[in-house]
């Protein structure tokens, strides 16, 4: 009996012992909770860092250049075709949907808005977060405003006016929020950028991977020059019958003022005196190539550095690996179009003419041509498990049975460093904004204001750095505008500008014609041009559609014209 009693006692103690007070209060072991993040300065800052990572980067399985006349996507399973043939629909978001292969996934509506939410959350929480010094708090607030402006600029570029959400939304709210007008959207972005630098918030910030005053003004010049473009300044007349032109264009006001604002913003960057065109090598071609292979330079304004530890192949490794020439070990998945190759002028400043120069198309061209494109006979390297041997690109050889445009990308790739199989990785950052773009934005604003001399001067700064002759004063009016546009095209090739430029200039009809390539007949030593693929333009593609499901969730939204 005694045994039984003692056993029972032990049992009772055992059971009671198992359930201490607070037994059911356990903590998540793999994530932080709200209080932890906002009571720790480093964690709060790391939340801000995450928002930076939401800024689009143009290189993925598909390069964004393949969505316009700069490149062709070689493995095209319909994702890009929808864009290239203007057949995207609200149901089919194609390249703009959330898709790992997609260079545009950070341009996707849902992702951009989730980054905007992160900015809103940061701005709400930072007020009460424990931050050691107020200057740091102000600086981080400035950065969050810059980022919020950046994300709305992405939306504006694709959709026009969008709902402007500047607070943290919650479950259960009324989601039927209509789109703001195009003008309100632009003004909002400008306000955000002004807010970013208010009271010198960013004056202590020099890190170019983060928001600086230079980055803020440069972005402002980009946004304003886009807003001043043709597409947004003709009352949406291209979309006849569309009942909400205010969503896709200015419906009043003065275009000159817009150009002036764009010019002022660019001027501000120029006058900072912090930035200059990179000019370190006497060989102009080499100089232009090295511009993208420098870890830092005065031309950089806003940059992005890859995490080379976790993200195995990325950044410029990725470009060499995925878009590089087959001989270099690459797969040539995105190849430069003949259209872009032909846009590079002759070294004397005359336009290149393929038919006229067919016997020797690659001599005496713009030095930037040799730094940007690998063409038949271009000196390059074979890469065999990290061993580089010089050779000349042979498009007949690399062509094989595979269809190829005959042009591969060279810009951004560093053969000396790039050995993507054995750990030697290109460390260079991707440049989101560089000084040359600001000069071009400035030139475009001046052209809009009729200040041709000033425009010519800005363009010529870039041409001189590139080793090209000045545009003579005799070139004016439409001819000068054409020169400017071509300059922008070759200087900023594959840097995620062209897609938007052809739209805002309303020259997309021509840009979405034929994508050309070149054949080389080894036996006859003869080049011939061919149509790689035929594309198609429909004006509705000036803006991309809001997705069908988003329209169903928010019934206050109005769709863009033509969808």
């Amino acid at each position: 009996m005694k045994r039984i009693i003692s056993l029972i006692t032990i049992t009772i103690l055992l059971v009671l012992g198992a359930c201490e007070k607070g037994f059911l209060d356990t903590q998540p072991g793999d994530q932080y909770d709200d209080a932890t993040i906002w009571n720790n300065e480093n964690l709060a800052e790391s939340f801000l860092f995450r928002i930076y990572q939401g800024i689009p980067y143009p290189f993925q399985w598909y390069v964004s250049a393949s969505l316009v006349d700069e490149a062709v996507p070689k493995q095209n399973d319909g994702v890009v075709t929808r864009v290239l043939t203007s057949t995207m629909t609200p149901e089919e978001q194609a390249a703009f949907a959330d898709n790992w292969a997609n260079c545009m996934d950070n341009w996707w509506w849902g992702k951009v808005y989730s980054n905007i939410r992160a900015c809103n959350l940061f701005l709400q929480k930072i007020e009460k977060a424990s931050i050691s010094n107020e200057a740091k708090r102000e600086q981080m607030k400035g950065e969050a405003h810059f980022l919020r402006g950046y994300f709305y600029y992405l939306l504006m570029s694709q959709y026009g006016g969008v709902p402007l959400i500047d607070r943290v939304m919650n479950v259960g709210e009324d989601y039927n929020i209509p789109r703001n007008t195009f003008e309100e959207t632009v003004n909002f972005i400008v306000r955000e950028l002004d807010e970013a630098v208010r009271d010198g918030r960013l004056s202590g910030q020099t890190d170019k991977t983060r928001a600086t005053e230079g980055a803020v003004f440069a972005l402002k010049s980009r946004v304003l020059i886009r807003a001043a473009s043709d597409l947004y300044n003709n009352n949406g007349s291209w979309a006849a019958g569309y009942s909400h032109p205010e969503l896709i264009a200015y419906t009043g006001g003065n275009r000159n003022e817009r150009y002036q604002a764009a010019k002022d913003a660019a001027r501000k960057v120029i006058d900072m005196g912090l930035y200059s065109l990179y000019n370190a090598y006497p060989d102009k071609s080499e100089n232009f190539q090295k511009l993208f292979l420098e870890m830092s330079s005065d031309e950089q304004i806003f940059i992005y550095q890859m995490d080379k530890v976790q993200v195995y192949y990325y950044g410029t490794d990725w470009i060499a690996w995925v878009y590089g020439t087959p001989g270099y070990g690459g797969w040539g998945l995105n190849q430069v179009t003949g259209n872009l190759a032909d846009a590079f002028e002759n070294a004397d400043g005359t336009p290149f003419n393929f038919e006229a120069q067919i016997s020797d198309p690659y001599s005496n061209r713009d030095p930037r041509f040799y730094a940007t494109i690998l063409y038949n006979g271009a000196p390059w390297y074979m890469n065999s498990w990290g061993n580089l041997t010089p050779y000349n690109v042979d498009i007949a050889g690399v062509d094989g049975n595979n269809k190829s445009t005959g042009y591969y990308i060279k810009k951004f790739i560093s053969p000396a460093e790039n050995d993507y199989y054995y750990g030697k990785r290109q460390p260079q950052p991707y440049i989101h904004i560089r000084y040359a773009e600001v000069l071009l934005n400035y030139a475009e604003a001046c052209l809009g204001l009729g200040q041709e001399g000033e425009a010519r001067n800005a363009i010529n700064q870039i041409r001189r750095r590139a080793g090209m002759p000045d545009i003579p004063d005799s070139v004016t009016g439409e001819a000068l505008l054409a020169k400017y546009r071509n300059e922008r095209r070759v200087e900023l090739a594959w840097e995620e500008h062209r897609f938007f430029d052809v739209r805002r200039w309303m020259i997309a009809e021509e840009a979405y014609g034929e994508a050309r390539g070149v054949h080389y007949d080894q036996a006859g030593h003869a080049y011939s041009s061919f149509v790689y693929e035929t594309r198609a333009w429909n004006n509705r593609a000036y803006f991309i559609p809001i997705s069908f499901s988003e329209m169903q969730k928010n019934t206050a939204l109005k769709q863009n014209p033509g969808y």
Partner: protein
Amino acid sequence: MKKKSRILLFAIAVLPLLFAHGLLKAEHFSELMPASDDLGIVIEDLQQIVVSGTVTDENDLPMPEVHVVEKGTINAVATDANGVYKIRIINPEAILQFSFIGYKTKEVSVSGQTVINLRMEPDVSVLEDVVIVGYGVQKKATMSGSVSVVKGSEIVQSPALNISNSVAGKIPGLVAVGQSGEPGQDYSTLFIRGRSTLNNNDPLIVVDGVPNRSLERIDPSTIESISVLKDASAAIYGSQAANGVILVTTKRAAADKMTVTANYTLGYSRPTRIPLLCNAAEYATLVNEIDYYDQISPTYTPTEIQKYADGSDPWRYPSTDWFSEVLKPWSMQQNSNITLSGGSEKARAFVAVSARNQDGFFHNSASKYAQYDLRANNDFRLSKYIKLSVDASARLEKRDSPTKTSAGIFRDLMTALPIQIASWPNGLPGPPLDPTTQNNPMVQATKAGGVNHSDNYVLNINGKLKIDIPWIEGLSWTTAGALDRGLFYSKYFSKRYALYKWDGSTLDESGNPKLISSQYGSSNLLQHLYIDKSYLVNSILDYRKSFSRRHDLNLTGGIEVIENGSNWFTAERRNFANNYPEELRFGDSNQQYADGTNPGLNRWLNFFGRVNYSYENKYIAEFVWRYQGSSKFSPETRWGFFPGISLAYRISQEDFWHNSRIGGIVDNMKLRFSWGKTGNDLIAPYQFYSLYRQVFYSFVTEDQAYHQTYSESHAGNSRAQWEEADQINAGIDLAFLNNNLTFTADYFNNLRSKILITRTASVPEMTGMASILPDVNLGKVRNHGVDLDLAYNTRFSGIDLRAGINACYARNKVLFFDEAQGFLPWQQQTGHPMKSGLYYDAIGIFSTAPDLDRYPHLDEARTGDVIFRDVNGDGKITGDDMIRIYKNIVPTFTGGLNLTGSYKGLELVLSFQAQAGAVRYVQDLGGKGIQNYLRSFYDNRWTESNPSTKYPRTYNRNDEYWVSSVNPNTYWLRKTDFLRLKTLELGYSLPEKLTGRIGLQNMRVSLGGMNLLTWSPGIKDYDPELEPKGDGFAGAGYPLQKVVTAGVTIQF
């Protein structure tokens, strides 16, 4: 697995043998009880005879509480503490029935005897009479809930190495859906009575009283029974019971002489189904058709197609059947086990050891599985009042798989083109399928590409102490504890492998094609360690008492504490210079990575109980409850009360029934009804917190400093709680023909509410919340239907025949769901079965040009394309024309037919499984230069000369609107109805004369098989049961197995 491990295996097999043997020897066998004195005849009344006697158990110990009934009457008594009974009977020819839970019911005809002493025999098939239920056992006869049982002996008939694959078709309402056949990864998901929630539908698995253990890899030869609680009787498991509860009970030894049983089974397996794909000439023909539709010149000339067809130039024009190149015809599997069982009243042991292994389908397969088990269930009687059981089971699961997943290899087998070389005519492996993937499944399915090896150790220990309180008769106190540990250790080592290319022209000196070898893949080592641990302590008071032999009362109450948790870490180095040694040290120290974390502890604090009352075994009422707190929820929502009530009426026990005509036909009729409220807490914990997750990659500032980054991962919802289920069940049990024909039918109606829904459907992405939306307890689903079980046993001219049919029809309907504001009435989920898809309604093919004028269509449509129905009649095809269908991947009907016939030593077992009412989206993505096509498509496709109205034209991957993944349409929906011969076993037990001569008690040889025949009219190219894993790509996923086996079992 060479010599060393064989010795180890031997040791594992023999040690417990020795152990058990020693145990038996050390034991003092109880002395026989002296027989009771004759009690003599006492004639108290001329009309009445008193019969008396002593009832003893198999060890001749007196048995109290044995029910003694004069058959056919309500005249009954029970034996006293000394096993003595005394009953007055009226009819001198009466038959006395002796029954006790767990023992065979015996009948003795009185025939004038006045003293009848009886030795009861334990019922080997204990389950005939009692059923394991939550925290206890119940007599089947007086059960009021809906509980079905399958015996261990039926499970061992299946050669499946995973029990979840063996139970299909065995239990009414238990649905098993095959997920993969890959060695070590093969399993079926189990559902009870279909699916009731949009979230996790997994039933709670309780093994020997311990919840959350896994059922799948238990050695089948150690299973005594599996009970499935389907209704409110599960409410005693509270917030974990709504999906039903599966109780697994392992075998225990009887106090009997030691028996040793050994079994060896050899099996060979192959895929149940492999899609038949086009050969090279057919494929080239299709590619030319695409070119024709694209208005470009054909890729292949007629001469080339001819060469592909005649095989005259295998170097340049191969025609590769990838499946037969990579898969071998049959793959071996083996299973052996030894069980020992026996002991005395004071100490008994059941010990089982087993080893099994299984080879993958690939030639030189990198995919393999081996498992070793040891179980020892020991019972000790410490004193008259104290019983102790200590069970331990240890298991080692060893898995090998290719470093490229098997699902990925099967995907490659589907995509690989027949014009590509798998291996060159000289035997060297062919080139990569394409330069981007660098794959060649021929090589990657073998160890040449490296192996992902893992060892999974599972240790389950539980002990139970039962004290019969001496002062109060019928009261006992049981305290149980369990400690489970799991340790999963894996080593993923990928290697570079050589593939050979040929430029199609260069020859070597001897005039043979000159192949160039290149290295592909990478050489990395990733090691991973995952540990999970859980413990349980419970303490239960149980009171069982009969009053006046009419009122049977059982009260149970207990408290329980459960905790489980896990943590893991990984370490990795890349760029190994050599393929050996496979150790981290030899990797590149500049490329090393480590990570690790834990998801947080889950804890439950439970109070539970049961009140069971029956009056004359006729009117039965039961109430079960649980009051439960769970750490998954916030302090304000974590506690809940879950009651369950059930009532039964055994109308056949009424006197009038016996006297009526129907009573002569129907031996038993029981009506049952139950209602209960249960919960489902299989949801992510900590939903009430706002959470932030570390992002995989760092933010690098200009100074090259790496900064970790965090993003909002979840917006908190402090009101989140478990799902609630209201379960109603009404059933009837019938028995005819002397209980040889039994029938059970149940109607169930389960209303699941507060289903956690992520409101992605209605919350616009514009809120920025798309990926961080908290779940909200909003959804409501009704799942109702019937399940039936019919069993018939008969015996004629020496033949024993048993037949069982079970079926379940369950249909669910969404009553509330989160819908987008702008959803059109025909697109809403509400009112449709859960997760039914939204599709364009494909109503045919634009067979001829006039069809294009007849139907609204997309601009790009042409003849040979699929017609989408213009649902809203606006003359255009847009997203508004998508409709919600009334089916999904869950079958509404599932069932099984089990037949067993035996004649002398010969036994034949057939087990069929059937399902109907489900559809699956099976999109075959053929494409030019991308993927092969199904032969069935080739044979039937639309062409200008064969303007089919059923099959479309040749398509190119996503290029056609009706193939594109963003336009899902009903053309690709296939019915998955099937009837399958799941298990077949033909056994022969050698006559005892023969076995006795060689010193064996029994010897049985058998032939068997699994998934031998399948009939599925709606889906012919793929297995109808397999739910493809991986990326849901048709044909991807490791196929299910068809197995043939031969086995031998000896007993001594």
